[in-house]
């Protein structure tokens, strides 16, 4: 392994990533989050819940620790998605093939990718730290500046988390099955599992099992509280790190207590080293799986099913003279396009879906047909609404991804015909995936869920289209939709349940989804117009 080569590769990768618009957006988001991580006393949300009556004072040590911890969680959940895809970019641009023809080793290459991801994430952490110090001064609970106390927690908490998020992204990028949209879904559940394993109320909880560093921080802060007020009590289940929104928090002034900062004891340091070593092991595993840009045949799981177009086998009449000149071509005739484009978009969207996707689709349709209606509402339909996520997520950006935009945008009415056709195809997919449920709702006279899913089937493709057109990538929609789906339909949160099936909706929510659908479609329309005016 050549450290100089790794450093130079990483440097080029950092330059490439940080010169993209997406990086600037990420930094802007980080400024906002860095400020929001320290809610003022009496806010409707809290980012660290220790007890009903206490929280540490916003001094240099606590501001640094809390920001470092929340940034670590953000990196593990969102940062992974932000840095994922750099190997795929090398594959797509052809740079990978050039690198593969050099003596560069797999581990060197992957380690350079990991290193560049870590640096990119830590540059965002630096932004969060500056924003947190500024917020500390604004809130004024303790304006004492102590850069060591503020920044050291980043080294202990955030750096290992950034390393783990980056290494996992490299591992996923190295696996054909996980480098695409499926990997985005898998990481979401992997993160949930990591959080559950390291949870404060999990039996046998310890800092060693917690990748985020929450356990270490919470126990040490609680020790600080007990030293300040020995009568203070708190249960692990009540403690929470993250965004806790609750209207009852409004105006509630918590008592604050001074906190001196983290003790760098053996468990604290050892556990973070352990997670860093595990991250390095992930890069090692990635090196074993990485194909080094070889054009290996696709695995049976990732292989698409040829979805034959109904007219794909049409050929010229037998005995027809061979066409050797343009003059002999059949004249082109214009025709009806209202059905033609949505149909073509639909077939394109479904083309190449894997065999296991089709089996799952059929299974979900059967389950929706035979399961008791309450089970359909609370289980099968919500699951079914997630199934076409990769069909929807390709819309709005597929043409640019595959270099077809030049031809398509030169066609007549590229916005009104093609964009609308793409959206209609998405609506048809949404209606198809919930068709048995829709029929059963209609038969049972349950019009609220029936209309709810009709609106949902219009909303989701509009969301996908807007994100696809503006971001040029499927990833943003996939991640956002995953969150929306997990919180909305899967946990029956009415405001976020775009299906309108799992929880009763008020008129405001109905109107909001209607307006949002139109707004998203208009946003996609404006984005496409902008692309055409570029």
């Amino acid at each position, binding site marked *: 392994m050549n450290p100089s080569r790794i450093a130079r590769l990483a440097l080029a990768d950092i330059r490439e990533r940080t010169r993209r618009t997406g990086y600037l957006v990420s930094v802007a988001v980080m400024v906002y989050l860095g400020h929001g991580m320290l809610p003022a006393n009496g806010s409707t949300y809290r980012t660290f819940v220790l007890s009903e009556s206490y929280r540490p004072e916003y001094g240099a040590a606590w501001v640094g620790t809390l920001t470092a911890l929340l940034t670590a969680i953000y990196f593990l959940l969102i940062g992974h998605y932000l840095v994922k895809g750099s190997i795929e970019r090398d594959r797509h641009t052809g740079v990978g093939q050039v690198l593969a023809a050099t003596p560069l080793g797999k581990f060197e290459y992957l380690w350079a990718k990991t290193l560049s991801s870590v640096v990119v994430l830590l540059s965002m952490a630096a932004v969060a730290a500056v924003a947190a110090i500024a917020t500390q001064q604004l809130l004024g609970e303790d304006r004492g500046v102590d850069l060591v106390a503020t920044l050291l927690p980043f080294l202990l908490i955030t750096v290992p988390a950034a390393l783990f998020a980056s290494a996992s992204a490299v591992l996923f990028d190295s696996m054909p099955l996980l480098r695409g949209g499926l990997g985005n879904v898998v990481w979401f559940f992997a993160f949930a599992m990591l959080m559950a394993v390291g949870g404060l109320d999990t039996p046998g909880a310890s800092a060693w099992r917690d990748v985020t560093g929450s356990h270490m921080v919470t126990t040490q802060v609680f020790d600080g509280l007990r030293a300040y007020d020995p009568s203070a009590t708190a249960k692990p289940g009540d403690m929470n790190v993250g965004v806790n929104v609750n209207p009852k928090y409004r105006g509630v002034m918590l008592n604050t207590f001074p906190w001196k900062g983290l003790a760098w004891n053996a468990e604290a340091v050892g556990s973070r080293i352990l997670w860093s070593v595990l991250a390095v092991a992930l890069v090692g595993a990635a090196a074993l799986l990485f194909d080094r840009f070889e054009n290996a045949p696709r695995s049976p799981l990732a292989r698409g099913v040829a979805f034959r177009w109904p007219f794909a086998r*049409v050929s010229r009449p037998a005995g027809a003279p061979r066409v050797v000149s343009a003059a002999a071509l059949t004249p082109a005739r*214009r025709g009806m396009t209202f059905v033609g484009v949505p149909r073509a978009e639909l077939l394109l969207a479904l083309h190449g879906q894997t065999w296991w996707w089709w089996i799952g689709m059929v299974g979900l349709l059967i389950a929706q047909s035979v399961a008791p209606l309450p089970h359909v509402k609370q289980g099968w339909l919500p699951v079914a609404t997630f199934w076409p996520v990769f069909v929807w997520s390709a819309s709005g950006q597929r043409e640019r991804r595959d270099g077809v935009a030049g031809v*398509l945008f*030169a066609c*007549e*009415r590229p916005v009104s015909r093609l964009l609308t056709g793409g959206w209609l195809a998405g609506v048809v997919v949404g209606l198809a995936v919930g068709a048995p449920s829709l029929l059963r709702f209609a038969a049972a006279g349950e019009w609220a869920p029936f209309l709810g899913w009709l609106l949902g089937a219009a909303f989701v493709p509009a969301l996908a289209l807007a994100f696809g057109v503006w971001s040029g990538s499927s990833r943003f929609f996939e991640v956002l939709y995953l969150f929306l789906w997990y919180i909305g339909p899967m946990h029956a949160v009415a405001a976020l349940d775009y299906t309108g099936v799992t929880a009763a909706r008020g008129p405001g929510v109905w109107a909001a989804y209607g307006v949002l659908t139109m707004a998203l479609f208009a946003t996609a329309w404006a984005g496409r117009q902008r692309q055409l005016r570029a």
Partner: protein
Amino acid sequence: MHLVIEGVGKKYPSRGWALSEFSLTLAPGLTGLLGPNGAGKSTLMRILATITRASAGRVTWDGVDVAKSPDSLRSVLGYLPQDFGVYPQLSAIEFLEYLAAAKGLDSRSARLRIAELLELVHLTDSAHRPLGGYSGGMRQRVGIAQALLNDPQLLIVDEPTAGLDPEERVRFRNLLGELSGERIVLLSTHIVSDVEATASRIALLSSGKLVAEGTPEALLARVEGKVWELAVSPEHLDDARRLWLVGAALRRGSDVLLRVVADECPRPDARAVAPSLEDAYLALVREDRANAIAGARA
């Protein structure tokens, strides 16, 4: 049927004017747009194909401003971009069916036309294979087929012969020549031989500006009596390149036979030869660059 380009320019925030004050009127026939890499050919092609808006000037199709009414042109346009891509999961037939729908063609007649076009570009045997497995040249032929799908009155092809083998290149050049009889064909390339055989007019673009325009004969006349052949030893080749504008260098025995473009006879033993379009191209581009440098110094 005419396409009028009036004072068209394109300014990019990052690199300034990629194209400036370009004016040309195109009538039926094949016009070759020649120019070195980065001359602004693709920018002009994208403006004409309505996928990029000009920063200055205007383009009209039969008197209609295409910036205001782009669909008036798009309905009769066939366009093969330089960076033509495909949907890798689709077969050639499926991809062309998709584009036929996008172009608003009747599906029944489109099917037959697609089969014929695939035969014309020699892809019938591969028509049902996914495009992801096609070679670069085969993809380019799919690109040519899609540009002809709607029987366009205006055919814009940007570096169409890139990736084609010599046989396919000749075949495509002949096809363009045949098509240009009753429609406007604009062929952009930096390969002079691509336009030499078929273009009725040639426009030369350099550094974002129109440097010369006219029939091939008119361009050749500009270097008439200025092209010479002379032999030099291999060790003097670099000196020769520094002294003269060398178009071609061919090994002949122990010497190298040079084709030189110069106003005066470069050496007493040099022999005047008939100019080629490539000589004219090199001379005009060199002249433009010299003018640009002189202008910058002034």
